[in-house]
């Protein structure tokens, strides 16, 4: 039966299966083999569609449709309330001594440490930091861009970009890869990628949109975890005791010691440094990447989780006067305001049993009397 295989142009057929369809016509034998290959792919792939996961996603999508309308109404109501209370407070507080507001801007500065030991403070006006054979480096208020130089020699010395608490920064590497760095993070990378691979190191939280280059794999290292990219956008979070890698698009190979796993979009690998385990789970990637779009997005998160994020993000300290409040959980979805006070307002208007008292850079959380 397989003597018919002689009629098959395998190069053409394999390219078609690999997604490089040049639109060439296939003969009967090739079509029959294609049908068989498609059937195998579907039967083998059935494991990618577990019903429990499908059901969870369905329930989420269904609830999201219902919830969206609800939230809009609630937000509108909250806005009216803010205005009303704001006006009331204003007249009331003008008579008493005013409480402090959490309106301070962060004191730290973004710093770039060049491989030659030279250090530059960023965040000011546009400037050219370096322009030589290895790379050109330009900075403006909130971003840094590397351009490839004419010199193609291997660069082994590393530059370091440090983003303090309270600030965010974006960086474009010499290969075109874009990196968003969240507050309290550090990225270590070469000024140019002239070797056979592209390696960078991260602490804190960063989102990578990696420029595709199949010849030179891009690997992000964080502690014991290595994330090898096959043309991808993903988020790394090392703030807590675990290292979380969340994939937005493409494919990602995550390895930690002997363990490894391949991530698909909306999947997250969690590495636990204590027991060396690497686990994979399905998540909604947007929850983990909203920060780089300038959003604050927490879905059913505890007040403790939310405030520890806010502390880092606005460079404040939170103190729970009543520990039972730590476990309250709610959903918060808003544009990231310039000052913390706006976030506190939003929270206390949706949770009316909460009160925030600001003292300098410390926020005390207590029950409303």
């Amino acid at each position, binding site marked *: 039966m397989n003597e018919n295989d002689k009629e098959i142009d395998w190069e053409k057929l394999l390219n078609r299966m690999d997604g490089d*369809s040049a639109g060439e016509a296939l003969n009967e034998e090739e079509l029959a083999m294609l*049908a068989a290959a498609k059937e195998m792919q579907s039967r083998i*792939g059935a494991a990618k569609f577990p019903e429990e996961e499908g059901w969870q996603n369905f329930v989420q999508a269904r609830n999201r449709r219902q919830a969206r309308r609800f939230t809009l109404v609630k937000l509108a109501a909250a806005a009216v309330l803010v205005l009303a209370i704001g006006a009331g407070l204003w007249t009331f507080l003008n008579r008493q001594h005013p409480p402090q507001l959490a309106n301070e801007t962060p004191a730290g500065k973004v710093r770039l440490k060049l491989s030659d030991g030279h250090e530059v403070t960023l965040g000011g006006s546009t400037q050219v930091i370096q322009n030589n054979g290895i790379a050109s480096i330009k900075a403006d208020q909130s971003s840094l861009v590397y351009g490839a130089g004419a010199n193609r020699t291997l660069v082994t010395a590393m530059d370091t970009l440090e983003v303090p608490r309270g600030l965010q920064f974006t960086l474009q590497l010499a290969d075109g890869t874009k990196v968003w760095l969240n507050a309290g993070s550090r990225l270590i990378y070469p000024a140019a990628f002239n070797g056979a691979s592209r390696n960078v190191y991260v602490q804190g939280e960063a989102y990578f949109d990696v420029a595709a280059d199949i010849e030179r794999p891009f690997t992000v290292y964080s502690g014991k975890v290595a994330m090898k990219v096959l043309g991808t956008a993903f988020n790394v979070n090392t703030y807590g005791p675990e290292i979380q890698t969340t994939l937005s698009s493409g494919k990602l190979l995550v390895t930690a010691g002997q363990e490894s796993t391949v991530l698909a979009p909306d999947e997250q690998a969690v590495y636990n440094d204590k027991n060396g385990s690497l686990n994979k789970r399905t998540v909604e990637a947007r929850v983990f990447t909203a920060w780089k779009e300038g959003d604050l997005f927490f879905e059913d998160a505890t007040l403790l989780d939310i405030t520890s994020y806010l502390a880092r993000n606005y460079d404040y300290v939170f103190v729970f006067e009543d520990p039972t409040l730590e476990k309250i959980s709610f959903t918060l979805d808003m544009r990231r305001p310039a000052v913390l006070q706006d976030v506190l307002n939003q929270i206390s208007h949706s949770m009316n049993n909460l009160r925030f008292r600001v003292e300098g850079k410390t926020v005390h959380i207590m029950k409303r009397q």
Partner: protein
Amino acid sequence: MVICRKQQQHNAGQQMMEINPDFIILCADNNEVTKWFMYQPKSGEVVSFEEQFKLHYTFLCTAAYYVVEDEDAARDIVQDFFLYCWSKRHIIRITHDFKSYAVRAIRNASLNYLKKSGKTSLEEVAVIENMTQHFPLEDNEAEADRNAALWAAVARLPEQRRRIFLLSNRDGLKYKDIAATLGISVNTVKTQIKLALQFLRKECRWMNIIIAFLFFLKNN
């Protein structure tokens, strides 16, 4: 046909037209009193929406994936179908075989997706439409047997060939990525995939029937 939509009592005679065209196959009017459930075909037993979903989800995703060859698109198509069923659960009444309805709806939606994507020529979509007559079967037992036979044949592949075949078919990696991951050349990957396909098709004899049928189609 097995799909009936119930019209509201007060506007009987007037068709409801807001139905998502991707999913509707055939509708017949029905003036019986609405039942808010879906029925299992054989036993006539009422099953919940969740049971119905879990019973058919994997199978339907596979059917969609066969056509669109994109995991996420397949998941979206099936999820949209169920969201649609959910939103219309008060007016759709499925009195007969939900699976048969669902497979055709998913197939149509998948073929529409291909057409809209613009990446696939209309001729090719027609060819794929022909292929869908052979996969998947609606008989659960026959499907399970064939899956088992294929997996048994995969287990008989030499180790490296099986690994490459699964990285391609199960993990969805491109040949280039497999080559990079395993540190071998793209040509080696292609050769191994080719050998795996030839072997598996020989082992799974039902896949050979397709040749004759497609040939038959072409000659008519």
